């Protein structure tokens, strides 16, 4: 009887010791991890700061570039005034620059806005009701076929060698990521572009049942120049 009581006490005490040892080991490990997490957090903050600084700089550079382009254009126009040969070349040059996406362009056109279906999560087959990259490609292709002269997706100029990729709810054009809604701007004859999308059995018919898609004609819209794409930089040199 006395022995049994002793055993019970012993068991209790040893369990407690075991627990204490283990928890202290765990605690020191946890602290080390916390410190590591702290370090990571600091790294994150500093990275974020660097990204912001970098963004500020690139914005400044973009403005500088626009200013330079205007100066160049002025210089070229001055030359064109003096000489008819220069004027002819300037016309060609302006056209080629616009086609190459080297300068921002403006003109009439339409804006197509695509969104995932808000009821997607309620439906049985979610994948049917969200936008896929082939849907974006389909719209871009149709706009091109209808004579769009210049196209951008969420502010990224779409060139002949621009890759369009969807990863989850984001779209990557020219390597630049942006999220829904996908806004596709196209310069061209607004009526022709809109009609092309609205053809029976056309893009709107195919997509409208599944995702939200809207078109709006615009008298004037601007499409930025292609900036920051490594590929074109390489081919040009």
């Amino acid at each position, binding site marked *: 009887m006395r022995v049994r009581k002793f055993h019970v006490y*012993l068991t209790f005490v*040893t*369990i407690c010791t*075991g*627990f204490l040892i283990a928890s202290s080991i765990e605690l020191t490990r946890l602290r080390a991890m916390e410190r590591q997490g702290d370090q990571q957090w600091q790294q994150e903050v500093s990275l974020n700061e660097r*990204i912001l600084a970098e963004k500020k700089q690139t914005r400044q550079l*973009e403005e500088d570039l626009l200013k330079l382009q205007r100066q160049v254009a002025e210089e070229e126009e001055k030359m064109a005034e003096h000489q008819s040969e220069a004027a002819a070349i300037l016309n060609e040059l302006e056209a080629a620059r616009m086609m190459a996406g080297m*300068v921002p362009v403006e003109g009439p056109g339409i804006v197509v806005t695509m969104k995932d279906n808000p009821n997607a999560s309620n439906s049985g087959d979610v994948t049917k009701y969200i936008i896929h990259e082939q849907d974006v490609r389909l719209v871009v292709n149709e706009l091109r076929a209808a004579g769009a002269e210049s196209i951008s997706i969420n502010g990224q100029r779409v060139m*002949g060698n621009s890759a369009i990729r969807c990863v989850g709810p984001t779209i990557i054009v020219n390597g630049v*990521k942006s999220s829904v809604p996908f806004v596709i701007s196209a310069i061209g004859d607004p009526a022709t572009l809109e009609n092309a999308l609205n053809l029976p059995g056309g893009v709107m018919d195919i997509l409208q049942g599944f995702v939200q898609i809207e078109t709006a004609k615009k008298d004037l819209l601007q499409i930025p120049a292609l900036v920051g794409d490594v590929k074109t930089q390489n081919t040009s040199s």
Partner: protein
Amino acid sequence: MLGQNRKITFILTAISVIIGVMLATQLQSTLKPEKVESRSLNELRISLQKEIEKHQNLLNDISKFEHLLYQYDTSLNERESISVMKEELARARKLAGLESAEGPGVVVRIEDMKLPPGPLGTDDGSPAGTEALPDLLIDEDLRWLVNELLVNGAKAVAINGQRLVATSAIRNVGQYIQVNTYTIRPPYEIAALGDPEVLVSGLKLSGIEETFQLANKTVVLEKRDTLTLPPFTGNQTIHYMKPVKAKGDS
């Protein structure tokens, strides 16, 4: 009696210590927070890299225009400045895809799939592998392929000699596919400039063979050290767009 008692005590001690340790570690492991920081850290690093890349490209662009401006300013006579303009025109035309382009790359040939010889072939003595399966290829297959090439770093692409530019559409018209409003017919040959190794492995990874198998096509990938893409020859008239001139005047 006493010795036996000691033994039992020892065993009990050992077992209970083990149980205690197990309990504690189990409790801790359920409370342990998940490690998610490293992933977001990676993402941040990638976006910083992108931003630096963009910065670099902007600097490149700026230096090009600065150089151009300098050349205009220092040209002594009109003929010289016109030749500068012509050079700039050549550069712009190249970027726009209006000139032929050369470099290493790959050629993707999409051919009709033949009925495999053997048990699936015909038994009545007629040569197996001559009868083509129905052509199920549609425009989206080609658009997908072109996009996969571009995703893997292709700099320029041409389909059956039709260079793809910013205004190029690929679409079904009747029973054929049109590129740049020109009708192309099988077999299709897609040429792309870029790093051949990266392009080929990228295409294989994205399942190009399986995709075209569904359309009864076989795919042949060829790496080339030099490849020449023709210039874009389609419609180049511009009616609607014009350069933005007013922006940033404030």
